[in-house]
């Protein structure tokens, strides 16, 4: 058939090499790289039988920017702003993973106040990341309005952080031995005001979205990820906590001063999209709790260790430093050969591991459910490709 030959030669390497099953009545659908629900340039090759997915295979690499290689030709300080570009929704966690690794490598002391500022800003950033995910996820499910409500709240966080950091999206705030600028009374009062507002808003979110009949039906029992699957693919963050395992880097390997705060690790045993959704909603509440405790206990003093090296030249060694990002465990494995720039920097991105389990979970679901599962994994595409 002429048509068959034409179709076989169309498409690129991935669609030609896509292994379909033996069945003949299926259709190969290219979801992405430009698709409203992949939120970036993720591409998923689907073999579908009607609306049911027979096989799903993510294709990556459309926004690969060689961050790890860039680190090898930059000094340790110069690379810091790049970390904010990896995950643009929770850049402070990525910044912290890099700076924390350098500090561990060189054994730099961080002043008390700087640690508190790091915790406050990082948790604010986590809330803003979860808010954006919330809006975008519900947009995927077909409701447009909550997106704007989420941005309404996120805007306040952006304003608060902009005054201190100077940027609104790709923050680069942490320095080796502290933070770039000190916070002032206005920051403290604005943050407190935001925390109070957010608690009320969470009630509204629950009434408007979480308790909605249609919404619950779209989430409950959808995309069940057993804990064994999470372990197999190395999934972390809300994905594994929604599968019944209280794994949080802030608790399991405490860094900075997280062991001083009283907060819960939300865990849900339902393993479905609703579990992951509720974990993130509870995390917003827990982050508010951490911020309020940190603001209460905020000590006076310097915010940057003056003795910290401006142009570090660490001894040959290798360290691993992990922090809890909005999407899971953010890790930086830094190897130094004694020079001004790293010999190798390996970035562990949580979205990459979380996406890996998609093709197993999506099998046999409807397209609409696959979109729901994809959204519940909270993927940030630049972070997958790095």
């Amino acid at each position, binding site marked *: 058939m002429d048509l068959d030959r034409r179709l076989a030669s169309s498409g690129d390497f991935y669609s030609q090499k896509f292994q379909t099953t033996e069945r003949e009545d299926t259709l190969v*659908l290219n979801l992405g790289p430009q698709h409203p629900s992949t939120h970036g340039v993720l591409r998923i090759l689907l073999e579908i039988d009607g609306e049911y997915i027979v096989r799903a295979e993510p294709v990556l690499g459309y926004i690969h920017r060689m961050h790890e290689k860039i680190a090898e030709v930059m000094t340790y300080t110069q690379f810091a702003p790049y970390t904010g570009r990896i995950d643009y929704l929770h850049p402070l966690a990525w910044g912290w993973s890099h700076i924390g690794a350098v500090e561990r490598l060189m054994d730099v002391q961080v002043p008390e106040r700087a640690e508190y500022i790091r915790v406050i800003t990082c948790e604010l950033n986590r809330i803003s990341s979860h808010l954006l995910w919330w809006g975008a996820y519900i947009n995927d499910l*077909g409701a447009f*309005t909550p997106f*704007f409500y989420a941005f309404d709240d996120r805007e306040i966080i952006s304003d608060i952080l902009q005054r201190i950091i100077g940027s609104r999206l790709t923050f680069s705030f942490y320095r080796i031995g502290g933070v770039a600028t000190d916070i002032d009374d206005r920051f403290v009062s604005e943050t407190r005001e935001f925390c109070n507002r957010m608690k009320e808003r969470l009630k509204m979110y629950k009434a408007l979205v979480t308790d909605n009949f249609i919404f619950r*039906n779209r989430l409950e029992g959808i995309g069940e990820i057993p804990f064994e699957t999470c372990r197999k693919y190395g999934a972390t963050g809300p994905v594994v906590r929604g599968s019944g395992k209280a794994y949080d880097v802030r608790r399991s390997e405490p860094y900075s001063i997280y062991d001083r705060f009283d907060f819960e690790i939300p865990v849900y045993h339902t393993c479905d999209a609703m579990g992951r959704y509720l974990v993130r909603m509870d995390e917003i509440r827990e982050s508010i709790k951490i911020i309020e405790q940190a603001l209460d206990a905020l000590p006076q003093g310097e915010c940057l260790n003056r003795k910290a090296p401006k142009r570090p030249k660490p001894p040959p060694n290798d360290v691993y430093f992990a922090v809890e990002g909005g999407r899971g465990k953010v890790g930086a494995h830094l190897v130094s050969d004694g020079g001004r720039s790293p010999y190798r920097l390996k970035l562990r991105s949580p979205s990459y591991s979380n996406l890996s389990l998609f093709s197993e979970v999506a099998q046999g679901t409807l*397209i*609409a459910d696959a979109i729901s599962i994809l959204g519940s994994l909270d993927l940030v595409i630049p972070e997958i490709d790095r």
Partner: protein
Amino acid sequence: MMDLIFFPWQLFVIFVGLAGVMAFVGLNGLLLVYLDRKIAGFIQRRVGPYEVGPQGILQPVADGLKLLGKQIFTPKGADPALYWLAPMISITPAIVVFIAIPFGPNLQVINTNVGLILILAFTGINVLALCLGGWASQNKYALLGAARDIAQSVAYEIPLLLSVLPIIFLTGTFNLFDIASGQGAWPWQWYILHQPVAFLIFFVCILAETNRSPFDLPEGESELTAGFHTDYSGMAFALFFLAEYSYMVIGSCLIATIFLGGFQGPIASGAWWFLAKVYILLLIMIWIRWTFPRLRFDQLLNICWKWMIPIAVVNLLVTLAVISL
């Protein structure tokens, strides 16, 4: 004298009526696009259209002109004849059926005994248009959207008809004018109080038939990018868009006529009462659209087959029993 000049009055009335109806559909389309966007803006805490004209009132006109100026474009591999036929099939019944709707005591193009059947039959043609459009564009997303639309429309036709039947048994006529004037001027005399269950089922079915949220699966943009009209642009897209809004208006007109007393109101019955009722229903549809998420496809069909149809049948049987007593 009358025999000397043969003048086909009936035809003349229909032509004038059609012209009026076209103007009505066009104006309604413009107004509804504006209202939809402005209300969306209000619900989402933003301004909505603001730049073109005072309070953005000319925004739909600007949009329409933009769509008129677009290149007429047939995608590669599409079947051109069917591809261009589809939007026309979609818009034609949407205009024609307005001739049977009684807007006011003396404002109806043709008063026919089968008005209700005519409207329900003609609006069913829209399925064919969406199916052809999705099939002919040679696009996988469009094909999926068309498949969804057929299953959805065919399924929801059944409870739609079943919920109208009790009213037909009550009134004993398919004539929309008689149905409207059979109800009194005051709200407690309307059929919505006689048949509340039928009203609810009918309203939900109208939402599903017109592909409005939360039943907008054929064009579910987060799953199928734009569904059956993925490849359409320019005026072809505009016709689909206008047809969708017209079907919304038709649905609201039917509900207002059958359940809400039509053109009758407590004071000064007339077309304004009819329009007010229609627009209240349209506003409710817009409100629902900007509030609820989308259903999944199997849930949509489950609601229809497992809930709507049995309830409608029970409602019909109860009505019959009460009438025969």
